[in-house]
């Protein structure tokens, strides 16, 4: 297989417009003759469905939630970047492009990133017109803040609910199209397989989560906007239902999976309190602006109340190790250092599985300096959230934080058109790998989801349909369709009837998450990854032998839904470890212990400046690697240093 990125050439600032001018179009009167399936209704899927419906295509949109308004984009707190330069602080499309390529640690495609930066400004216009209530200044114009260490203020926000408001904007646009009849919405419906016919993606097999009914949906093309795979770790900041089944089923049908080992760990989450914990909650990174991170210097102090530990016995490890950046070091550095101090036995908080995985984030000095009133204004809602979850009052005692998986940069490999290696199968938003390289900058996820949904896919979908014109009809009883249905039914049957049913799917998912978290999480080594690659297939066999699902497949069955998702996480988790083992360098969210220099990640541009795109071979343990070389014409790779 040859990976063709289909990037336009020429000056980078003209590439997207030249590409559009050279592309194919579908005339307005012909659009209703074309049908498009969109799976997922978050920022990318919701925006794409609404925009394609508006253009006149026949759209079917699917989501597993009971309403498209509940997709997990809704939980994004911080904001959305756009190169508007409203603050006159020297921002530009080029600077956002530059920051994003650098932030991705030189593992993304320049053309894609430039387009993302270019489209960022239109997203804000679009959202404001929809009535998204962004924060404003007293003069009535839009407010901005600096986010995630950026040197300019380019982040737009709606209190701490930016994702919610942008998603509701897309949902409202989608609602309008549902009313207009251009989009047919299928909530509580899960995609369980992709239908490939004549080498093209032509439809999906779904299960109605309310009735258990398995159905087929045929169309001219399929777009997957199904989010990321953080839940492979079991505990993550993702919603409980977030899963990788759609992308993994597509992968098994021939779509290459790119850079699975690039996952982002967010440093400021509320630590796990017990083995029953179902998810982790993120708290805004802004907390690190004023909070001081520390652990006890001595192991014997870890069980003492923090107030009882004198100043001299507190180890402010970020301030000591990184005097220039202190508590504001980048996400991966902050996360990794929390891992190191807890590995040294200095972690605090409750003991889970024999370990204390938490560090203090202390606001005592900040409250003294700023006063309680100002602290309350800045952090009151976060303090309240922390107290609601942990029962501790951050005004009186330090908060406890620990890193958690938050975002996955890897995903389905796509070309410049967001088309996967299966013609007619496209992927947008977090589900694809394209724009963030090895690490994602803060406030860029919302930007990418909406850029793909509102602006990229509406053009590239038309370009594809304009090219293929009239695809022959595909009947429901065609062998290719029936084979996919049979595969889905057989799999449901297998999950329902394990030979020695013992435990619910969570039991195995927790164990898998534990392996991936410790061996393919913040810090990875050859030894650990090889161990994981021995353990995962064993655990997977155990799962298929022993998973216990009660009830039947022909009814609403939440245990069955989870079992199917866990089964796919097993295969994806294994691929993450294989990819991490292959990448003998440290870059972005991927840190290999063997490749560092004075504790800093050591990239190897000579040998690893490529996108790793993995092909399914029929055996989860033996995927085939294809490399898309990356070239940097504009932003020359440099080394990061935060000392």
């Amino acid at each position, binding site marked *: 297989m040859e990976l063709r990125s289909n990037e336009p050439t020429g000056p980078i600032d003209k590439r997207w417009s030249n590409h559009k001018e050279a592309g194919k179009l579908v005339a307005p009167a012909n659009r209703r003759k074309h049908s498009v399936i969109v799976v997922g209704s978050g920022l990318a899927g919701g925006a794409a469905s*609404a925009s394609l419906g508006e253009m006149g295509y026949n759209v079917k949109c699917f989501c597993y939630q009971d309403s498209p308004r509940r997709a997990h984009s809704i939980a994004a707190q911080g904001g959305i970047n756009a190169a508007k330069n409203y603050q006159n602080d020297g921002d530009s499309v080029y600077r956002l492009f530059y920051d994003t390529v650098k932030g991705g640690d030189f593992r993304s495609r320049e053309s894609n990133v430039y387009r993302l930066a270019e489209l960022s400004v239109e997203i804000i216009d679009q*959202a404001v017109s929809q009535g998204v209530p962004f924060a404003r200044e007293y003069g009535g114009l839009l407010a901005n803040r600096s986010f995630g260490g950026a040197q300019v203020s380019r982040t737009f926000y709606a209190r701490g609910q930016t994702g919610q408001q942008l998603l509701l904007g897309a949902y*409202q646009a989608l609602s309008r199209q549902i009313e207009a009849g251009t989009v047919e919405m299928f909530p509580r419906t899960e995609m369980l397989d992709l239908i490939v016919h004549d080498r093209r993606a032509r439809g999906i097999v779904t299960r109605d989560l309310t009735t258990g009914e398995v159905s087929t949906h045929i169309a001219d093309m399929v777009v997957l906007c199904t989010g990321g795979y953080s839940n492979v770790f079991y505990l993550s900041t993702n919603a409980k239902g977030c899963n990788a089944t759609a992308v993994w089923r597509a992968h098994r049908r021939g779509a290459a999976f790119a850079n699975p080992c690039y996952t982002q760990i967010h440093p400021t989450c509320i630590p796990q309190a017990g083995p029953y914990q179902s998810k982790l909650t993120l708290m805004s990174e802004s907390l690190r602006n004023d909070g001081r991170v520390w652990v006890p210097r001595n192991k014997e102090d870890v069980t003492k109340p923090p107030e009882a530990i004198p100043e001299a016995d507190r180890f402010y490890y970020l301030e000591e190790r990184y005097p220039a950046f202190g508590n504001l070091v980048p996400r991966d550095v902050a996360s990794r250092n929390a891992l190191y101090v807890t590995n040294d036995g200095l972690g605090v908080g409750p003991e889970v599985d024999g370990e204390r995985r938490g560090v203090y984030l202390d606001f005592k000095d900040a409250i003294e300096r700023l006063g309680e009133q100002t602290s309350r204004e800045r952090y009151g809602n976060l303090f309240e959230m922390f107290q609601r979850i942990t029962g501790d009052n951050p005004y009186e005692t330090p908060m406890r934080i620990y890193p958690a998986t938050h975002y996955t940069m890897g995903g389905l490999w796509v070309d410049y058109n967001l088309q996967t290696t299966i013609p007619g199968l496209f992927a947008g938003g977090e589900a694809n790998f394209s724009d963030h390289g090895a690490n994602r900058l803060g406030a860029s996820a919302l930007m990418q989801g909406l850029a793909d949904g509102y602006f990229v896919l509406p053009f590239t979908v038309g370009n594809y349909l304009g090219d293929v014109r009239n695809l022959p009809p595909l009947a429901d009883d065609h062998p290719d369709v029936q084979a996919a249905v049979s595969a889905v039914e057989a799999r449901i049957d297998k999950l329902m009837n394990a030979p020695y049913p013992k435990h619910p799917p969570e039991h195995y998912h927790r164990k898998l998450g534990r392996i991936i978290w410790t061996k393919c999480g913040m810090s990875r080594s050859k030894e650990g990854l090889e161990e994981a690659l021995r353990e995962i297939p064993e655990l997977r066999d155990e799962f298929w032998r022993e998973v216990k699902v009660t009830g039947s497949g022909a009814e609403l069955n939440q245990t069955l839904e989870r079992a199917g998702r866990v089964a796919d996480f097993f295969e994806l988790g294994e691929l993450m470890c294989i990819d991490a083992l292959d990448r003998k360098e440290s870059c972005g969210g991927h840190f290999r212990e063997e490749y560092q220099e004075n504790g800093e990640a050591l990239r190897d541009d000579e040998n690893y400046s490529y996108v790793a795109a993995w092909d399914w071979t029929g055996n989860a343990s033996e995927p085939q690697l294809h490399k898309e070389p990356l070239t940097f014409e504009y932003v020359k790779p440099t080394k990061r240093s935060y000392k």
Partner: protein
Amino acid sequence: MSDRLINLTLHVWRQTGPDEPGRFETYQAKDITTHMSFLEMLDVVNEGLIERGETPIVFDYDCREGICGSCGIVVNGEAHGPQRRTSTCQVHMRQFQDGDELWLEPWRASGFPIVKDLMVDRSAFDRIMQAGGYVSIRTGSAPEANELPVAKELADKAMDAAACIGCGACVAACPNASASLFTAAKVAHLSLLPQGQPERADRVRKMVAQMDAEGFGGCTNHGECEAACPKGISLDWIARMNRELVRAMVKSEKPVQARDR
């Protein structure tokens, strides 16, 4: 960090389908640590049921951080349980005492048919939104964002209304099972902003007509909705919606048609 272990008796509404009769079943939740969230407590109960070969309790959940609006259980008669301004997923077990008896029910409203156990069908909310809860703006046709200044005060008020998560607790808490708070919040959000002006009159008439067609009751100012709302959406928006509706009806006599359920 006061960690307690408590035992609870749960009386849970079990119903296999929308047209089947339902009943309370009793379960023991044993050794529940008070750091658990309410839904984690139910996860533990469910895992026990599966281990014993029984059918687990069905309930909606997703983000588990109080923003997606998926979850919602009536606990001892209170929508979302005992904690103010907190959705079920964010209620933690330290709210309860050892030996407590809890009665768990689904949202009860004719506009929200029961799907199974504690899960209800809230698609009526989506249809109210589809009737007019948007600004008709074509992708790509938006003017420059700062061309139209919006007074900070208005933007902040619009944001207050827009914070609704669409969970339906307002309906569940209302003695009339009215969807007025939900509908009013969206009407207010969009009617406050200049972007929402062109369709202002049509929007409120269509949304209210759809709300009525879905079988929700009328508002008689009990205020239970505001008290149950996890986001603190104000009852004042309902008064505003009523004013908007009168204003719209004065302006136009064209009838609006609600969609069939």
